[in-house]
């Protein structure tokens, strides 16, 4: 069974600090790795994504690092702000699944304290 394991389950960071969330996958048949951000009472929304032929992708304060050999990828939030407080999900798209299906991690609840 294809799985994506995410850690930590919850994270507290001071304003201005770096938030790091890690994910690992157990199957090599994934071809796309997005991160979704979910605010309380809302549905998840795409934050940033990476393909496996790229080791790093940066968009503003958000960076994905991808280690293909270790089957791991992580989200770094630089200069974390209270407005970043949300639940973050990593995900992976099965290569053969089609239909844009995604396998989601369990989620990380991030709290950024002022």
């Amino acid at each position, binding site marked *: 069974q294809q799985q994506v394991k*995410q850690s930590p*389950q919850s994270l507290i960071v001071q304003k201005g600090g770096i938030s790091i969330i890690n994910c690992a996958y157990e199957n090599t048949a994934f071809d*796309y790795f*997005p991160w979704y951000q979910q605010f309380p*009472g*809302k*549905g*998840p*929304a*795409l934050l940033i*994504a990476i*393909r496996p032929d790229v080791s790093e992708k940066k968009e503003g304060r958000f960076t994905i690092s991808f280690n293909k050999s270790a089957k791991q990828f992580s989200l770094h939030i630089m200069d974390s702000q209270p407005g970043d407080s949300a639940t973050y*999900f990593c995900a992976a*798209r099965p290569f053969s699944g089609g*239909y*844009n*299906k*995604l396998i*989601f*991690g*369990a*989620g990380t609840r991030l709290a950024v304290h002022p």
Partner: protein
Amino acid sequence: NAGVTQTPKFRILKIGQSMTLQCAQDMNHNYMYWYRQDPGMGLKLIYYSVGAGITDKGEVPNGYNVSRSTTEDFPLRLELAAPSQTSVYFCASSPNSGGPPYEQYFGPGTRLTVT
């Protein structure tokens, strides 16, 4: 565009009752999905559809049924509700773009409690 809309927002069911969760999208997306979100468990795929008249099971389909008679609508039916179906349900849609970002657009969710 309203995006993906879901109704109702909240619902309390008694054990054994049935209900339909409504989902609609106005983006002309081919692909639609139903997820359930339980604390600490992430999003689990219940059913998905690749177009009108075509549906398939996801990871946790037991106790649910779906239909897709139009591109816009993808209702989820719960028959004989059980406490294990207490969850937040999200509907999502995605375009058949043939390439990245393969983005799924989520609705605001329906919080269901079965007692």
